[in-house]
């Protein structure tokens, strides 16, 4: 995004906010509704249409599902147990049809728009082997945010199917839920039961919300403009011409990329959450200090949390609890060691989850590999866990001790770094080439010659990045220890609040990588 697009966004948000404040309590949600509709139309007319279709499909399916449930509840009184069961089966069948329809409409549009060319390409390569026909590839313009709001809508439909809550009775409110403008383009993927009440409720101006929102916005801008965009120049230079550079430079570039990815994504989420917070709305948190994770599994519970929990609730659990999987687990219980029997079924379900997670990021083989990479690491971790436990017991190593924990954190960082590099590489082949480049013999000349600082991110930039990351690290440590700077700022005294806010504003304006001499850096996660 260019900084003008920030200006547009904030200009838009300010106008919506002023109208929001001016409206009476009960009408406030309508302002958000109108604002979100307008926002999607400004972004892209096609996006507005897609949003409307998805939301309306979710709305009608939800309504139908609740209706069916009510019918069952009304009819079941006075029925015998067997009759009840029969009726339930009947209703469940109908409900399944409805939920399938809802999912197919929203997921279908996502698949058609995002994956057509991928599947056609896949078909072509298979057909090439057998000498079959070649289909022309179809590329559609992918509306921004489709990968995010589609999941949100599906979550809603499935939850009404499960009877977690009653369906929304007001179509406009559901449209607002699916398309709430701060989270439209990059998430976080919200849940109806948590988000909807906040959207509808209406909030007065509150000092606390305002300061914490604005601080969060500037914190996000700090991450994005000061750190992420600054790192991006070196990253694109090295990844674009990786054959020119030695192991150290390439390795630094991959680390820089991981930093860029994290600050870009979490920065944008902070900006959006901050915007919502000003309105008095708390979006789901998407990150919980991911780089303190001791294992890759933990990392994924702390990184892009809303995507992880979405896949857990709507893919992992239903798949593992489905009857074929239950059968599988019974079968494996009979034929394998107890340990393996416990792993095999969930491993199969996890495979589906990670395939999905990978593909969600993009329609390309590299994302499939990306997902499976994490799957494999976690699987190996689980399989070897008992062995590790035994080994450390024998060697008398305290696995929960400080040294081991630190090592585990570092190991996770390294593994994640290798995984994230896949995002940046243009394909699997290039990815392999980049990674193998790291393992070339180390050439000290890389450092002494100053190449590192001549790749678009000079020594001043490095200094800013290092200081910026250090500040982020301190904030994260505080948070790990239960001290949230944001709460401190929003509720604290002036001598805490003002220096922090002013410091952030000055840092963004002075040390942000924006304006003349800086290229435009797109948000990485908006493309997914």
């Amino acid at each position: 995004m260019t900084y003008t697009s920030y200006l547009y966004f904030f200009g838009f948000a300010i106008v919506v906010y002023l109208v929001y404040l001016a409206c009476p309590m009960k009408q406030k949600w309508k302002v958000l509704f109108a604002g979100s509709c307008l926002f999607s139309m400004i972004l892209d007319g096609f996006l507005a249409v897609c949003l409307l279709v998805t939301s309306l499909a979710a709305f009608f399916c939800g309504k139908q599902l609740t209706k069916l449930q009510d019918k069952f509840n009304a009819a079941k009184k006075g029925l015998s147990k067997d009759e009840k069961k029969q009726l339930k089966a009947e209703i469940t069948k109908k409900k399944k049809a409805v939920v399938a329809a809802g999912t197919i409409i929203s997921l279908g549009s996502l698949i058609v728009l995002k994956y057509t060319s991928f599947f056609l390409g896949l078909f072509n390569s298979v057909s090439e082997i057998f000498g079959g026909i070649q289909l022309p590839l179809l590329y559609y313009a992918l509306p921004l945010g489709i990968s995010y709001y589609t999941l949100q809508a599906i979550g809603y439909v499935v939850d009404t199917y499960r009877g977690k809550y009653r369906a929304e009775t007001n179509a406009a409110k559901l449209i607002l839920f699916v398309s709430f403008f701060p989270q439209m383009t990059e998430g976080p993927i919200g849940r109806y039961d948590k988000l909807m009440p906040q959207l509808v409720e209406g909030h007065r101006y509150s000092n606390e919300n305002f300061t914490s929102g604005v601080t969060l916005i500037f914190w996000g801008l700090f991450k994005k403009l000061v750190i992420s965009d600054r790192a991006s120049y070196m990253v694109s230079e090295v990844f674009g011409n990786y054959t020119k550079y030695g192991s150290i430079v390439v390795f630094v570039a991959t680390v820089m990329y991981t930093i860029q990815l994290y600050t870009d994504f979490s920065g944008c989420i902070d900006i959006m959450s901050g915007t919502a917070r000003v309105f008095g709305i708390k979006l789901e948190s998407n990150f919980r200090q991911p780089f303190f994770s001791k294992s890759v599994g933990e990392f994924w519970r702390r990184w892009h949390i809303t995507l992880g929990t979405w896949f857990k609730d709507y893919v992992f659990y239903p798949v593992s609890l489905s009857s074929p999987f239950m059968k599988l687990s019974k079968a494996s219980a009979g034929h394998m060691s107890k340990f393996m029997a416990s792993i095999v079924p969930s491993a199969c379900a996890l495979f589906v989850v990670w395939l999905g997670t990978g593909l969600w990021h993009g329609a390309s083989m590299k994302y499939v590999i990306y997902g499976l990479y994490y799957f494999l690491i976690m699987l190996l971790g689980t399989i070897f866990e008992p062995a590790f436990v035994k080994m450390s017991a024998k060697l008398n190593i305290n696995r929960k001790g400080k040294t081991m924990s630190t090592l585990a954190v570092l190991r996770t960082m390294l593994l994640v770094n290798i995984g994230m590099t896949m995002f940046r590489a243009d394909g699997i082949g290039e990815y392999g080439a980049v990674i193998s480049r790291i393992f070339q013999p180390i050439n000290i000349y890389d450092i002494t010659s100053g190449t590192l600082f001549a790749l678009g991110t000079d020594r001043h930039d490095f200094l800013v990045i290092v200081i910026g990351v250090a500040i982020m690290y301190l904030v994260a440590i505080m948070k790990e220890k239960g001290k949230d700077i944001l709460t401190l700022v929003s509720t604290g005294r002036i001598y805490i609040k003002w220096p922090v806010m002013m410091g952030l504003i000055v840092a963004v304006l002075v040390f942000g990588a924006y304006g003349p001499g800086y290229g435009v850096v797109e948000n990485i996660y908006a493309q997914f």
Partner: protein
Amino acid sequence: MEELLEILSEVKPGVDFEKETELVDSGILDSMAIIQLVARLADEYDVEITPVDLVPENFNSAEAIYALVKRLED
């Protein structure tokens, strides 16, 4: 209850399930362990646990799990 504690310690050995009240929130039971547990519970008690029941509140303590099973048995 005794039976349940046994199942629990089979799924995840070395945890004091009688005392823990944050099994999910503190990460002792991850989603994989929960699935294993659910499979065992379904077997032992002949209950059908659906995804909607898979929320942290139902699995945070042995007591909560027990309550869930009892509820589903009815």
